[in-house]
């Protein structure tokens, strides 16, 4: 029966922001993996995503999922002439930290660490929150992401100036805007369609 809520009474939700690998449990029935049509496969973009309950749930509206995923990939993976990947992941992590998406922050803080090799600095963003004083360039990227994430949006000239002052050109600023804006999309899906599960359970649920 797909028209009812799925509950996970046995799940222990993580209660802190972490760089560890978490699982994610859906509150609605994912699209049945054995009934995927060509349109659903196109929506999933990568066949491996048919193993993920999150992407199978989103595959219920496959055209939106396909466009969402391709938007995501270009914003984060297309690093031609732009902001280094580490700092796009920093924007994603700061956005997720402010919105309170523990799952999204775990994934993208790991990427930020992987690409920057600055695990302790990334952890400070998770532990201390978006006001952590890291260094001028990271602070400017975090502040810009936060100001864009607040509702109403506070992003203004002073944020552009702060980014420029730490060496970002306008294409790199667009990468910050895109990265943060995209996580305002992703956070809202992840937070509202299911719940994270703690590291010890992650492998069982993945």
């Amino acid at each position: 029966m797909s028209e009812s809520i799925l509950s996970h009474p046995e799940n222990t939700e993580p209660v802190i922001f972490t760089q560890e690998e978490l699982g994610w449990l859906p509150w609605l029935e994912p699209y049945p993996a054995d009934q995927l049509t060509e349109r659903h496969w196109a929506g999933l973009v990568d066949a491996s995503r048919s193993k993920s309950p999150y992407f199978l749930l989103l595959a219920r509206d496959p055209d939106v999922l396909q466009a969402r995923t391709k938007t995501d990939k270009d914003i984060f993976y297309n690093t031609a002439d732009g902001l280094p990947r580490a700092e796009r992941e920093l924007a994603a992590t700061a956005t997720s930290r402010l919105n309170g998406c523990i799952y999204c922050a775990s994934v993208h803080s790991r990427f930020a660490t992987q690409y920057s090799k600055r695990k302790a600095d990334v952890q400070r963003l998770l532990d201390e929150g978006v006001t952590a004083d890291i260094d001028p360039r990271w602070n400017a990227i975090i502040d810009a992401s936060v100001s864009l994430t607040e509702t109403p949006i506070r992003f203004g000239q002073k944020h552009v100036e702060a980014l420029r002052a730490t060496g970002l050109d306008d294409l790199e600023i667009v990468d910050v805007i895109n990265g943060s804006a995209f996580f305002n999309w992703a956070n809202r899906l992840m937070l509202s369609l299911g719940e994270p599960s703690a590291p010890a359970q992650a492998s069982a649920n993945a």
Partner: protein
Amino acid sequence: MSTATVDVIDLLAGIAPGTYLSEIRDKRPQARENAQKSYQALFEPEVPGNVTSLERYAIATFVAGLHRQPIVVEFYERNLRKLDQAGILGAVNREVANGSTEGPYGRYPQGPLTAEDQNGPDYRVSAESGSILGPRLSAALEHAHLLVFRPRDASAAALQKLLDAGWSTTDVVTLSQLVAFLSFQVRVIAGLRTLAAAHEQAVVEIERASVFTTVLASGGI
């Protein structure tokens, strides 16, 4: 089929083809093209499903209104007006005013982060608007408000309310994508507008400096 040939983000951010920011956007061609395809899949879907155009534009007008983005509001409102014969637009505008607040706020799971919990309104559609919007659209606006301002308060119980109001599982996915996409779209538009203004200001300053230098060089001062 799609009728929108205009890139909606360009339109609402005031970016004309061939301009400085248009060329920057071209460096991320897939992001640009697929942000537009996301818009089309949500507002001009090839397979519309159960979520009506009226519902989609009413929710979009509400979400843009909660973000206080008048240019985006006007765009969705214009589309809503074409479909609305029951005073939905008036009710949506009243609910934007009723729902106005600042975010993100909400609670964390009980633990160390509880110290960061922030209280805020638990928005409900007014009785007056509810009688015009009906239970299905009222439930959607309440859910949209939750996602816009306090996404960390989202819960399975909130989804149950949507199912109870007649939203199917697939409809809930579409609704969630709609609100989440709009949260992205308004931020890209606001960010690009700010950057365009900063660029224009910089150009004016360079021109002024160069005029000044020319005047100096000519011995005019």
